[in-house]
Structures are given as C-alpha cells and as structure tokens.
C-alpha cells in the first residue's frame, strides 16, 4: 500500500544512480525497491526543500569524480546532494536526514561475499559525518527490499516493503 495522500501528489521516480532535488510541495520523490542500494533523503523544513539520491555502490572506481551520475556512488552522492540542496536554499544545520536500504536480498552466501548493502550504508554515514550530519532515522540492513518516499510538502519519509504497508520513517 502507498503512503498517505500520495495519490494527489506528483510522483518522481529516482532510479539507480539518480539524484533529484525539489522545492515543489506537491511532489513526492520515490526510490523503488532498494535492495543493496541505499536511499538517502534529506529535507530542510525551513524553505521546504528536499532531495533523494539512490546510491548503488560505496566508492567511485576512478576517485571522486562523480562523472555523469554522481548519485551512483556514496563518496560523491552525499556531496552532490548537499550542494544541490544548498543551491535551492537549504541550510545545513536544519537538515533532516533519513536512510533506507542496504539489505542483503540475495541470500546469505552473496551477503557474506560482497557486503554491498552494509558497505553502502557505512560509506554514506561516514560521508555525512564529514559534513557534520548524522541520520535522524534509518531502515537499513536485513533481507528485504524497501521503497523509500520523501514527501516535499510535509518533509515526511515513508518506507514500505513488498509485503508491508508504508510506515513513516
């Protein structure tokens, strides 16, 4: 089931490696099916601006370039999201930060070998810390995929799984 009142909102899907910021109170940003990926939602309740990035991997292969998809890797995604938010009026000390995803959905053998979900969450958290930020709420780890929504009108975030209803994060 979708989150409350989502039917009347403009829904923008944030795919793998994508980074979207918005100041439209009628917009809802959504990262579908975060498996080992991590969704980072950041909102400034002052001007009512927020953004969502769908991070695939912890580190950029060629240093911190970011390339055409800075949202793809944690080491560039956090910086770019904060820069983009600052450009539309966000102020760092007001930011509300939420994280979801980083699960191991392919079974224990894969999880043990790659630990991508865990590493994604660690890399994002470390980069946030470098900016003096920490997550206010998280839904990380475990073995199920999650969908993360950020409602720009309220700043609320919701998480749902394939079998559970949306609940506020």
């Amino acid at each position, binding site marked *: 089931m979708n989150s409350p009142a989502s039917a009347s909102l403009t829904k923008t*899907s944030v*795919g*793998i490696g994508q980074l979207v910021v918005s100041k439209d109170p009628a917009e809802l940003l959504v990262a*579908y*099916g*975060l*498996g*080992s*990926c991590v969704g980072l939602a950041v909102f400034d309740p002052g001007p009512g601006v927020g953004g969502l990035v769908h991070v*695939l*991997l912890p580190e950029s*292969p060629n240093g911190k370039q970011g390339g055409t998809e800075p949202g793809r890797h944690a080491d560039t995604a956090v910086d770019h999201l904060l820069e983009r938010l600052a450009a539309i009026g966000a102020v760092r000390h007001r930011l509300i930060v939420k994280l979801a995803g980083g*699960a*191991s*959905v*392919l*079974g*224990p*053998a*894969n999880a043990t*070998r*790659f630990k*991508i*979900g865990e590493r994604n969450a660690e890399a994002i958290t470390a980069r946030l810390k470098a900016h003096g930020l920490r997550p206010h709420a998280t839904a990380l780890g475990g073995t*199920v*995929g*999650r*969908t993360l929504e950020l409602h720009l009108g309220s700043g609320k975030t919701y998480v749902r*799984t*394939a*079998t559970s209803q949306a609940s506020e994060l």
Partner: protein
Amino acid sequence: MSNRLDDITATLRVVASDGALRAGRGLSGLVGQDISIHVPSVRIGTNVDACDAVGGVDVLVLGAYLSMTGDITGHIMLIFPQGRALECVDLMCGQPLGTSVEVDELAASAVGELGNIVGSAFINALADRLGLILHPSPPAVVNDMAIALVESVYAAILAQGGDVVMIDTVFSDQRGETAGLLIVAPDPAALDRLRELAA
C-alpha cells in the same frame, strides 16, 4: 565499454543456447511434460529492462539466486512474477494451476529446485565450453520487489569494475510463453575468459 562486450557476445550466446537446451531437458524430465527454453537476447544488462520483463520495478517476484564459484565466478537468478511462479509450482507438483496461492514452504522449495535445475544447466554449459571447473551454490529462494533483486546483482558486478551482461531467457510450454527471466551475470574475470575463447 560496449565494444568490449561485443567481442564476446557471440560466444556467450552459444553458451546460453546450450544451457537453455540442457535446462529445458532437465525441467521437462522433472515435470513430465515438454518445456522448452530459448534465449532471445544476450545483452548488456539494464536493470530497468530486466524488471520490465517481469512486470515492472515494483512487482513482487519469486525465484531463486545461485552464485557460481570455482575457476571463475558469477551470478544466476531466475525470477517470475509471483503468480506465474506459483503456476510453475503447480506444474512441478502435478496439481491444477491455481492450486498454489501463497509462498509456503512447499512453494519455496519447488522454486528453489527450479532455480537449481536451470541455473546449474547454464553453469555446466559454461564450464564445458571453457574447459573450467565451476560449481553452483545451493539456491537461495528470493521473494521481493523485482528491482531490489536485480539491482543487487547489478551492484555485485559493478562493484568489481565490470560490465553487466544479462541473458534473457524465455520458458515455453503448451500454453505459451511465460514471463520468467533468467539473469546470467558473469563476474568480470569470467568475461575475460570468454573473450579469450572468442578471439
């Protein structure tokens, strides 16, 4: 990057076709009726395309994941929209379609076995073609949103600095084609070996 993959696409297609043939035989033997498997495309994996093949990013899928270990490594995942997977369970158990309505222990076990047969067939085809020793892991039953599963395979490959190759596989029986999708994603070292063979 695409040129790098173009070099080996023909070889990979041969491996995939052989794997499909073996898997079809194994599956037909198990369920007692002819099920053919064919491989319409070997392509660079785009995660959204893969999800669309099973009904969209948010659709609930059921399937099995196996990792390939041995001389080279990789990933095999067979996924169906959940309803279709449950029909496969009915087929495998010799019961009327529609009998299975939830993912219970029996359904999970049957889908795991289905993934085991199909995934192992592809791994054996790859091993024979390359003259390597390869082992499939026990199947892990997966039951989640399609995108969550596909992106996790995608991430495992890209984390090693490789390209993603996905082999779409269509299952056909007397009633027509299913919407099942087999994702075969060799790790980068496996692609290097395939390229050597193709040269």
